[in-house]
């Protein structure tokens, strides 16, 4: 594929991606297009379609799609594991995904209702001209000590403890970052830092990605190369481990 063609397809893909509000939306669309049951997804086929759709995408913008791709690949692999006919303890690896898809679809149903209602309201105007507020801002204030004290109580209940320190809102997610990086490298031979961390990533995300890279490198799943100091770090699949 020539460079121009590739750029072309990338652009059309981004346009298309805007049609989806997230990976679950894309997945649901595929399921509708393929006319299959949510409760019995032909995972290999859907997974293939999903990867085809996100292939060639600006990876740094699509961590959430890649995470889903990794999840689908994992389920696909689990489905291939041999199991005996009468194994009662067997759990469908798709169960969790089905649950999330059903929940998501239920929410989309509510969105339809809300969209309808907001359209109905948008098509009516409220009174446009309003008289100046006759009440001066110094209207009497109803305040009582019990009210203030219950507010203090609410603040204390709600405030992070201890008051002086804020607890980090999200713990590191190294496993998630590792899944993302693996997914990126399953579609690409080589990636850069900017591909695995979004430009506006929060500190915990940057840290998670860094730890994930080091861990994967330690396990020999990928190679980190920096040609000279301060140059861009190149992340690639480790040829040796791949051959193995």
């Amino acid at each position, binding site marked *: 594929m020539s460079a121009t063609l590739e750029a072309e397809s990338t652009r059309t893909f981004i346009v298309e991606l805007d049609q989806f509000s997230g990976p679950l939306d894309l997945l649901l669309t595929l399921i509708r297009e393929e*006319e299959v049951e*949510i409760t019995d997804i032909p995972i290999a086929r859907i997974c293939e379609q999903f990867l085809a759709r996100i292939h060639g995408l600006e990876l740094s913008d699509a961590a959430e799609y890649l995470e889903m791709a990794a999840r689908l690949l994992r389920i696909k692999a689990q489905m291939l594991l041999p199991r005996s006919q009468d194994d009662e303890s067997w759990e469908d690896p798709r169960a969790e995904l089905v649950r999330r898809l059903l929940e998501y679809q239920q929410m989309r*149903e509510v969105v339809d209702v809300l969209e309808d209602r907001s359209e109905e309201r948008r098509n009516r105007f409220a009174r446009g001209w309003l008289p100046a507020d006759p009440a001066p801002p110094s209207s009497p204030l109803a305040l009582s000590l019990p009210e203030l004290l219950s507010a203090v109580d609410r603040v204390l209940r709600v405030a992070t403890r201890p008051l002086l320190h804020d607890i980090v809102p999200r713990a590191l997610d190294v496993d998630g970052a590792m899944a993302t990086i693996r997914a990126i490298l399953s579609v690409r031979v080589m990636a850069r830092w900017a591909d695995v961390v979004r430009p506006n990533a929060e500190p915990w995300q940057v840290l998670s990605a860094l730890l994930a890279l080091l861990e994967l490198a330690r396990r020999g799943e990928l190679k980190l190369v920096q040609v000279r100091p301060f140059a861009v770090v190149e992340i690639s699949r480790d040829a040796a481990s791949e051959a193995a």
Partner: protein
Amino acid sequence: MTPLAKLLEAALFASGRPIPTDELAALDEDSSAAAVAAALDEIREHYDVEGHGVELVEIAGGWQILTRAEYTEAIERAQLAARPQRLSGAALETLAIIAYRQPISRADIEEIRGVAVGGVLKSLHERGLIDVVGRAEGLGRPLLYGTTPLFLEHFALRHLEELPRADELAIALRVVASSDATPSPNAAE
């Protein structure tokens, strides 16, 4: 129209927002709640029967006069008033989840939507459609979000219960899964 209906009409005309029923009742201390309800009925019926360009609508626990939908386009074309912007799909999805699952944390919303929602939450909060209603127990004690009265106004809902019940949705859901048809969003009246 009766004197009380005229007074209520004047007050409703003077306001751009729905007026709660108890504030309408406070306009005339001599009138009972039943009299106020009757006067509101009288106004609504008068607007419908006499064929006015406006109508009386029950919204967010109160009452509001709104123009009839059929005139919106002409009014907007003449640039006498403008419709507010539509909410994005991401904003609607997030609102839908908050409306049904409130109080709910950001992480739980992200779990359902499958994407980060920090920016969407911020803009919904700035628009006054959601608010922080508490903090969860447990690690990090995350903030919990809920919808506001303005949310009801925005969607012309009398109260949250007007949205279809979750179990009604679940039934529709199974139908959809097998028929592939888009559910008809008949808002419960």
